[in-house]
């Protein structure tokens, strides 16, 4: 039997229900990725806030202070402040996590309200994470090449930024399901 659409008969193929009134982006929802980004932002913001507080209090953090893994030394190095200023780099770190978390919150709020996400949201989040990755690579360069020491708190933050980038990459991928006229 011909399977031509003109026959008017279709084989009983399971098909997914198309969304009625939502765009594709809203239909797939914010998902676990957005919640992960919020979680990463909260943890990262906590670490950055902790290190910033210790910087201004002049107190060493709870960490290794000897050998290759030497958080105390790294956090007191010249790379621990924004170049040309006395502002600890943890302050821009706090800002980064706040913005990242806020972008994820927007995504979740849109999904809960059943409205479409702004088109710029996920690409903007991806660009923000790429900027974060560039900063992370700079700090890893400073630790490994210049200081020859590694800070465990910093590494934790770096991993959070990197994982956030991977999630945002996944979130800008086109929807897995495509429409095809029958």
């Amino acid at each position: 039997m011909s399977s031509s659409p003109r026959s008017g008969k279709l084989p009983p193929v399971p098909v997914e229900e198309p969304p009625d009134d939502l765009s594709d982006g809203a239909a797939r929802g914010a998902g676990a990725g957005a919640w992960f980004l919020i979680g990463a932002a909260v943890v990262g913001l906590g670490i950055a806030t902790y290190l910033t507080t210790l910087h201004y209090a002049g107190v060493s953090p709870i960490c290794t202070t000897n050998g290759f893994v030497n958080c105390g030394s790294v956090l007191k190095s010249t790379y621990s402040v924004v170049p040309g200023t006395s502002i600890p780099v943890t302050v821009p770190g706090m800002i980064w996590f706040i913005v990242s978390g806020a972008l994820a919150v927007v995504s979740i709020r849109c999904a809960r309200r059943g409205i479409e996400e702004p088109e710029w949201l996920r690409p903007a989040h991806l660009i923000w994470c790429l900027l974060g990755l560039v900063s992370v690579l700079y700090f890893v360069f400073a630790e490994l090449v210049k200081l020859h020491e590694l800070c465990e708190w910093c590494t934790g933050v770096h991993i959070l930024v990197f994982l956030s980038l991977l999630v945002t990459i996944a979130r800008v991928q086109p929807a897995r399901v495509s429409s095809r006229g029958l």
Partner: protein
Amino acid sequence: MARPSKRRRENVPAGRSVPSRTPGSTRTASSTPSRYRTQRVQVPRPWWQSPWAWGSAVIVVVLAVVVVFIVLGLQPAAKSSGSSSSSNQLAPASVLAAVTGVSPSVSSTVGAGGVADPLEAISGSPAALTGSSGKPEVFYLGAEFCPYCAAERWSVVIALSRFGTFTNLHITTSDSNPGDFPNTHTFTFYGSSYSSPYLDFAPIETNDRNDNPLQTPSAAEGTLASTYDTSPYSSSAGGIPFQDYGNRYIVSGSGVNPELLQGMTWQQIAVTLTDTSSKVAQPIIGDANWLTAGICKLTGDQPTSVCSAAPIASLEGQIASS
């Protein structure tokens, strides 16, 4: 052929509405007889649209960059004595302003700051140490890893700034050895320059904070160190910091205990320099006043604005004659 909407409506009993579909529910194509409807099906994607493609690429690139960093980190440090410090920041303007602008009233109030005369007069009559311009020279020998050098530099910078101007002065910290006042915040003379109408300054930082070689003393400077960085001028032969003031005075060790600076940033140390009651400022400024008095001995009390001011003139009178 009936339109789908009509046929669907015919299947619904009068007075009843079509049950709403729940999102994500499925149905069979047989219930959607129209060829005008669309259905969603799994279609193969190009490889670059795979969820894992870009993520995997990023992972590979980042891992490759980190490996490059690790390899670079394992390379021995550059041994050239270039004119710039590659790993240290320029001193922040606020810190520079604090150390080069210690108030005369604060300096006068602090006086010796409880610091004993650090200047050991050289016996005999060795040839005066002069710079290339013929002016009296202050020779400094230290290293970035050394916490005692770190503490002493605060006083040296304050003292020398009263006679001239530093440029390209960087900040650094001593090494992280936990048993020896780790990470003492300070300046480094490596890569800096100093100009003064009254004296020349010749600093040598032999190693960076990671003990990599930075600068090597000239033969003449090495002779100075081997001759005077020993008894009776120095309690520990070959120790640093070592300073020679025009071959008239030797300063061995630090007049400032690095323990006082532990846990303090450059900014926090700089801020204390306006507080005459600070236990940090007193030895730093007191030691700087002694060094200033020693330099005044070399410059013939020039400039008078520095050498005649309190407490410099008084301290100068207390320095043992050579």
